[in-house]
């Protein structure tokens, strides 16, 4: 196939090519380990620099090299950041997934591919526009070193695409210059490759395509960061000094980001001494053990893990609950059970995090919706752990954790003090203040603790997972045990007042219909409600949960609505389970909308789920 006839609206096509400005989905199909990730990221960042909101998603296998990966970019001037169904422009660079990739293109959509090796017409669809470029032969002609061929091929296709959909080449040049700052040769080489691709496209390909970008102003001062990095930064700002972790996708990059930020912010300029310690433990049992040991001794400590790690940590989590020792666990959820789909997203650890460990236990959860909240909750979790003297979970998922997302700039109030909770000092002990480690003196069921080594003769106590009395003395007396368990329940009530409130957004007109959601479902909800309003005329009040235990605002919302859709990304409606269990509400009014195939939830999916249920409900009401 010659370059000239590569640009084909296929013969016999009945569907007109899609025409869209700043509102379409581009998907790159690549091979893992081929160096495409940084080229794709360059592409996304260039669009952002043009002031157009873009939301990328990495879809990758549990593999290091060779298996398929995708990078999907939703471009939306309206600011929709949820995943969207269907692809407008497929950049098909992976023969392994060709059929599936071609199939996913919307009618009227576009296919960009490497036509160095000709493909039979049966490999294409008549209802799409096919743009072929002999990428491999073109690159190989220009470069002889294999490594260069691979790297520059990626930049060349970015150049070609920039011409096809109209990305300002200056913006890409600037990004490359920033990326390779100080390495002028590399910058020049990248710029050259970019323009080679671009020039080729301008001369040989049907520029412009129906999909176009136009400079906009919708990005504002927002920043582009992934949730794991933001959470790690939150831990730095929250004063965490000890991080113990065991590698597991999709949480590893959180501990790695913490390492990076600590190097930058917590290393003494003169001595090189570190105001932090990071230990890659031998397993998750050791990670959480170290966290508990450090927090017992007054340092702020955390671990980052995913579902399998939580399962292993369960015994220690119970100790933290019962012996009242602070701990913070960032759980970046992936698809379970067992090893499940380790590189796919899900919200299926809600139940285990809420009730981890044997015996009667429950644990506070923070549920961030985006990187900005990952930062906020990362810092807040440290305060809450010290205040409540228990394990605090920050529950992310792969979708928020491992994808860069446009988010409000991170803010810190310099007058804010870390809340280290109730810690009795040597002076207070010396002054004769009564110390009972498990004594509720303030009526909020939170006792005072002392750090080891505080005072020569007062305030020492024995920490144990066995039952004890108010003065930390071992006892198997049933009444002392029960008093303690009841105090822990009362402390749970205190926690309700300390957790971030759920955020309620009401529809313009009063309604008895509601929707409850949390975490990474968030960006798809507003769009879903628009779709529902379009399709059915119905509007719903929304409640975004930000924490467990639920505050009174959640109870009120459930009380006030007749039908509430609980949208989640798991099979068993785990949050619905918590709502029913903790609020003792009528389960019948909580309707499940569940997405759990490992892909991020879409607005279309939510709208379909709610509309399907809504129609009979409304008919019955009429």
């Amino acid at each position: 196939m010659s370059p000239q006839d590569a640009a084909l609206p296929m013969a016999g096509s009945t569907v007109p090519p899609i025409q869209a400005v700043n509102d379409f989905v581009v998907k790159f199909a690549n091979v893992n380990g081929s160096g495409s990730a940084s080229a794709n990221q360059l592409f996304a960042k260039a669009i952002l620099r043009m002031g157009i909101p873009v939301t990328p998603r990495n879809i990758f296998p549990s593999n290091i090299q060779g298996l398929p990966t995708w990078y999907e970019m939703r471009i939306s001037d309206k600011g929709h950041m949820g995943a969207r169904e269907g692809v407008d422009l497929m950049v098909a660079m992976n023969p392994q997934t060709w059929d599936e990739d071609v199939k996913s293109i919307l009618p009227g959509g576009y296919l960009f591919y490497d036509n160095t090796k000709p493909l039979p017409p049966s490999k294409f669809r008549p209802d799409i526009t096919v743009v072929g470029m002999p990428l491999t032969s073109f690159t190989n002609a220009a470069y002889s070193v294999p490594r260069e061929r691979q790297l520059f091929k990626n930049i060349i296709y970015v150049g070609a695409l920039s011409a096809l959909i109209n990305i300002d080449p200056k913006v890409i040049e600037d990004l490359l210059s920033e990326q390779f700052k100080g390495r002028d040769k590399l910058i020049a080489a990248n710029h050259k490759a970019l323009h080679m691709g671009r020039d080729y496209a301008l001369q040989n390909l049907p520029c412009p395509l129906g999909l176009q970008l136009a400079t906009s102003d919708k990005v504002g001062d927002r920043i582009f960061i992934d949730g794991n990095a933001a959470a790690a930064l939150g831990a730095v700002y929250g004063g965490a000094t000890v991080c113990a972790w065991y590698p597991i996708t999709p949480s590893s990059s959180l501990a790695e980001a913490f390492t990076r930020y600590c190097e930058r912010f917590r290393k003494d300029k003169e001595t090189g001494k570190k105001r932090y310690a990071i230990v890659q433990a031998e397993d998750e049992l050791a990670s959480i053990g170290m966290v508990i040991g450090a927090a017992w001794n007054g340092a702020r400590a955390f671990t980052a893990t995913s579902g399998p790690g939580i399962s292993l940590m369960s015994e220690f989590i119970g100790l933290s609950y019962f012996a009242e020792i602070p701990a913070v666990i960032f759980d970046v959820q992936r698809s379970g059970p067992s090893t499940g789909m380790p590189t796919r997203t899900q919200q299926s650890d809600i139940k285990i995090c809420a009730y981890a460990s044997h015996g009667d236990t429950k644990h506070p959860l923070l549920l961030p919706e985006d990187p900005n909240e990952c930062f906020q909750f990362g810092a807040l979790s440290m305060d809450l752990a010290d205040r409540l003297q228990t394990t605090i979970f920050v529950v992310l998922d792969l979708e928020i954790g491992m994808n860069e997302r446009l988010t409000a700039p991170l803010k810190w109030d310099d007058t804010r003090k870390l809340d280290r909770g109730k810690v009795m000092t040597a002076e207070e002990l010396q002054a004769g203040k009564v110390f009972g480690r498990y004594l509720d003196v303030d009526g909020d069921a939170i006792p005072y603790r002392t750090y080891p080594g505080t005072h020569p003769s007062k305030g020492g106590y024995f920490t144990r997972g066995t039952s004890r009395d108010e003065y930390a003395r071992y006892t198997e007396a049933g009444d002392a045990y029960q008093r303690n368990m009841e105090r822990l329940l009362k402390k749970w009530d205190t926690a309700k007042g300390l957790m971030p409130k759920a955020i309620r957004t009401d529809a313009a007109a009063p309604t008895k219909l509601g929707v409850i959601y949390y975490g990474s479902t968030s960006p798809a909800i507003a769009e879903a409600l628009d779709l529902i309003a379009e399709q059915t005329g119905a509007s719903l009040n929304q409640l975004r949960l930000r924490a467990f235990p639920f505050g009174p605002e959640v109870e009120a919302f459930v009380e006030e609505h007749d039908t509430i859709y609980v949208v989640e990304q798991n099979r068993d409606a785990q949050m619905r389970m918590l709502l029913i269990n903790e609020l003792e509400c009528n389960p019948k009014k909580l309707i499940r909308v569940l997405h759990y195939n490992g892909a991020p939830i879409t607005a279309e999916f939510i709208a379909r789920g709610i509309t399907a249920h809504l129609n009979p409900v409304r008919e019955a009401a009429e």
Partner: protein
Amino acid sequence: MTYLPKPKLAHPELQKNDLGFTRRDYEGSISTLCAGCGHDSISAAIIRACYELSLPPHRIAKLSGIGCSSKTPTYFLGNSHGFNSVHGRMPSVLTGANLANRELIYLGVSGDGDSASIGFGQFSHSIRRGVNMTYIVENNGVYGLTKGQFSATADRGAKNKRGVENMDEAIDMVGIAIQLGATYVARSFSGDKNQLVPLIKGALQHQGAAFIDTISPCVMFNNHDGSTKSYDYVREHNEAVNFMDVVTGRNEITVDYEPGTTEIVRQHNGGLLKLRKLANDYDVTDRVAAMNFLETRKARGEIVTGLLYVDPEADDLHGFLETSDKPFNSMSDEELIPGSAALEKLNASLR
């Protein structure tokens, strides 16, 4: 069973140490272990070691796992903070505690089940990391608390109370500790206070991972004929390589020794170990030789005790991690929070 407070009777004649504390100040509540349990002798040795070293009791943190042995921290150092954690996981908790405040003395007490069976991984990794601690395993070859099942240190061929033979190879914790880089390694016997007390003192003074395997007979489940961890068996097969004395500041000048038979080792923090050699040519600073010696003697059925290996120049986890001298748990907000200006800069780099 509830808490048993110990009557505090002030004996006017009780001697005081350099800090003005009496032995009593290092005691805990009354033991609830079986009468004659080896573990109680180890508690007594810990009390004596801390008293003789004039350690401020509240500056010692004592941590343990689960088991009869792990219960013992209640029975000594009543003014110290203690932490009875979960089964087999004391080492990780101790590691975390040590990271939070490098200025305290960390004493880990564990059992052979706790450290060689369920907690073998954590034992190994804490040693590998060089956590600054004194790690004592009270080794009776069985799970005392769950009524006498074999542990991973039970010798092949040893018989339990019902006469059933243990078929699995024993883990020699001392050998493992040396191999994994412990920088102070000793073995002793709960029935030999004179040997044990100085070994604990040397370990408490050691900077780095100090490990003491203390054979500690379980009178209830493993003190019969056919056991290799009974009082009689250990007494018969005990071969000490040296006898150690810890020389503290006060009596330092009075050290006298016959050259060739006595060795003086000065530890990092200035403490002196005076070793009277019992086995010819045993060099406590030669790690490879120590491993070889242990294996050779084990094959002969001997239980080698004494200070087996020491690296007086050892460093610890804090040294490896290059952490600041100031304990993390006393750092101010200013030392921890980078502030809003740094965040603004970071925001700018993310656009």
